[in-house]
């Protein structure tokens, strides 16, 4: 069995992240990848699929349900599920840090599992970067809106042109060593109080 023959089950309630992991695994040549978004009926899926590797989001409270599942399968002499390889602490620490928890079914070599786990970790990190960038883009948009409103207020109240209003905001920000958006916010707040 080569590395790419492994059967991998990805359990992630976040559909976007699951898609990113799925794509990454397929790019790496894994074709037996199953993605599920909810844990309802997961026992049956694990049983029929018999995955070699299960990747689950660490924030998913149903991890405890997986523990129960493994405990049950153990009692009927199915392979024991392991949390990666116990000796490979660094790679597990990285996984736990990234928020991914991987269950590797016993009997798999670490060398085969490690690239999958590394991939999942990097995809988890890529996803959180994506989230962060999205949040930053959103706040940048918010800031622009606030600055526009502050400019409008200054233009109306002090009879300035758009350029003059912007220059005044920027100069004030520089003088007070504050962010342009913060000064704009003060203008908007002050206007709200005064008008």
């Amino acid at each position, binding site marked *: 069995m080569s590395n790419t023959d492994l059967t991998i089950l990805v359990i992630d309630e976040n559909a976007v992240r699951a898609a990113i992991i799925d794509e990454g695994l397929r790019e790496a040549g894994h074709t037996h990848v199953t993605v599920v978004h909810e844990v309802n009926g997961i026992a049956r899926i694990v049983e029929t699929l018999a995955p070699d590797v299960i990747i689950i989001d660490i924030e998913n409270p149903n991890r*405890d349900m997986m*523990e129960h599942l493994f405990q049950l399968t153990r009692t009927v002499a199915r392979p024991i599920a392991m*949390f*990666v390889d116990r000796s490979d*602490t660094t790679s597990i620490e990285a996984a736990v*840090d990234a928020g991914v928890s991987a269950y590797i079914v016993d009997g798999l070599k670490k060398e085969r599992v490690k690239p999958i786990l590394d991939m999942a970790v990097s995809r988890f990190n890529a996803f959180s970067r994506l989230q962060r960038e999205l949040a930053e883009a959103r706040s940048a948009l918010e800031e622009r809106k606030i600055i526009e409103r502050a400019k409008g207020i200054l233009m109306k109240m002090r009879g300035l042109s758009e350029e003059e209003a912007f220059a005044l905001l920027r100069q004030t920000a520089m003088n007070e060593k504050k962010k342009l958006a913060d000064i704009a916010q003060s203008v908007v707040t002050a206007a709200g109080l005064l008008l």
Partner: protein
Amino acid sequence: MTSRRNDSGGLAAPGLGPGKQQRVLRAGFIPLMDASVLVAAAECGFAEREGLTLDLVRDVSWANVRDRLAFRQFDIAHMLSPMPVASMLGLGSNPSPTITPFSLGRGGNAITLSLRLFERMQSLTGIGEDASALDNARALASVLADMRIRGEQPPTLGMTYPFSSHNYEFRYWLAAGGIDPDRDVKLVVVPPPLTSDALAAGAIDGFCVGAPWNMVASERGVGRIVAAKQDIWPSAPEKVVGIRPDWAATNSDTVSRLIVALDAAARWCDTPENHDHLAEMLADTRYIATEVSIIRRVLAGEFSLDAKGNQRLLLDYFVFHRQNANYPRPSQALWIYSQMIRWGQVGFSEKGSQQAASAFRPDIYRQALGDAAAPDDGDIRIEGTTEGDRFMDAMVFDPADIDAYVGAFPVGSRHHQTSTSHDF
């Protein structure tokens, strides 16, 4: 103080005190009322007085708590008492040595069934609103027999974790009523905060979980409480503080300070005059995030059995400190071991006995608080013999003869010789 894991998953660097012992401790916890002692120690100055800072980190699953303690993301953790025992026995995924020098108290668990199931028990057997836990279990056994005759699916019951007091207490209660938990019902794991919703949605027909989730379900009118942990065995160990033995060895002074702080916090939690304050803290979104009035009533042991107004007063529903509730008595670890054997999680061996007992560390407790703080009836005692502390089926646990004790139960996995598969 509480912090959620930030985006990068990194936590603040551990603070080192004089002699390079750690003074800032990251403590993982699950939002349950039995995290009270940790919350009080962090919020009310008990940790500070010992020169420690407790950084409480809320988590979502026991498996996470276990792994994050093992991988040093937590220094100490709120744990189910069977978790250190399972770790020392090498059970479960990724078992890493874990010990407990301090129990976080007793009580808080209860068993709730759906109203539909309870009403069926009433109409079939005629049990009253004030039926005992044992009568309720027997009534459920009658309903299960009836369901089998009618070809109905057995009910699905929720608990919290394979190595949990809830798993063993639920099984104890079912078996005492003559129900085989592996054959007559389907046991599944449901995260505690989801139990009430799962019951309302019909995904499960009952559950055994810690406070306040039983009361949340009963007051919502979706469930009926049929047994409290006191009914099953009042002394049953509940949550503990889990630590890594290597960490405890290199931070022995810190561990002593921690135990002194937790001891003071536990006394404070046990004082009824402090319950309003405690309830306010626990209700906060950083901790349990539920109604303060429910928490207040749970602390007082004012049990709402259902939404119809049936009440029950359980004075010792929560015991945070008194009755040596914080003492990690090895015979209790052995009782947990006996239940693991009973339900087929592990076999009996002398070595297993020693490993299980080594998970509970009264020596560390005594080192911090002195011998006077220890109970006078020993580390290993015969359990279930004193008035007010009996098992619901009147069995007596002799830690010296675990094998015979397990064999004496009429219901257990040893009667499953022909069993080949589990339907889960």
